[in-house]
């Protein structure tokens, strides 16, 4: 299985405007590639997870796979600015990943050919006190 969550997380940590919005956690930012997120993590936070979908295709001399991932951004829903903040963060993620220079992503044992990002869409959250946005990233990977 090709796991891209670590390289996505590492790249997210380099997006300056995005990391400015996301809160700190331990010695890093509150960007997780697992759920449930830690109990003591603060909002705004982000979660990177593989999505269902994708598939295999043939290239001429190798295999190509489409691998979708979701990047979620969560925030408290206490002030109007909270929603604007995660909209901004989600848009930054989409803009940074869409047709990006893939050499900036860590890759080993596979080669990322291209990345496309969807527009942010409202994502489910645990309660009404939290708001969320999600972005679908679609990776074309040669292996």
């Amino acid at each position: 299985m090709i796991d891209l969550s670590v390289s996505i997380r590492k790249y997210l940590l380099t997006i300056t405007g995005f990391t400015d919005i996301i809160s700190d956690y331990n010695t890093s930012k509150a960007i997780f590639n697992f759920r449930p997120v830690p109990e003591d993590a603060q909002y705004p936070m982000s979660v990177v997870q593989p999505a269902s979908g994708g598939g295999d295709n043939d290239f001429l001399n190798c295999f190509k796979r489409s691998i979708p991932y979701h990047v979620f951004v969560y925030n408290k829903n206490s002030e109007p600015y909270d929603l604007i903040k995660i909209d901004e963060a989600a848009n930054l993620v989409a803009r940074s990943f869409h047709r990006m220079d893939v050499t900036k992503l860590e890759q080993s044992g596979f080669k990322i050919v291209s990345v496309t990002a969807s527009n942010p869409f409202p994502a489910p959250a645990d309660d009404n006190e939290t708001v969320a946005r999600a972005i679908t990233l679609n990776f074309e990977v040669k292996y």
Partner: protein
Amino acid sequence: MAVKWNTNLVNSIHSAAQDGIVDATDAVYEETLRLVLNTPKSGRIYKRGNRVHQASAPNESFANDTGNALRNTKKKEMKLVGEISADYEYALALELGTQKMAPRPTLGRALENKTKELPKIVSKPIQEILKR
């Protein structure tokens, strides 16, 4: 030179394509039911009165408990479009997960499992018409 349009054949192909869409939608819907009802779950076990319910673990398809989710998962075929919808409040939370709950992808996985078969299913009735 006059070109004669075979209206009957065109109409038959249209209706065969619609049959193909119906079959393809059925296939994805049945796969959804299979994932929920006939795949093993390994989550927590709850006891409710005399009944024991085993929940799904993260990333498994959701487990059927009260039947609400499956009752509200519906298929619909329109003109050359097949649709499977999940019309219940927590559908998106199950499919995509939340910050505190890992996803239980079901509809997406059903479509993914059937993706390779769908072109064949849709084209089969059309091929039968053309063979005649």
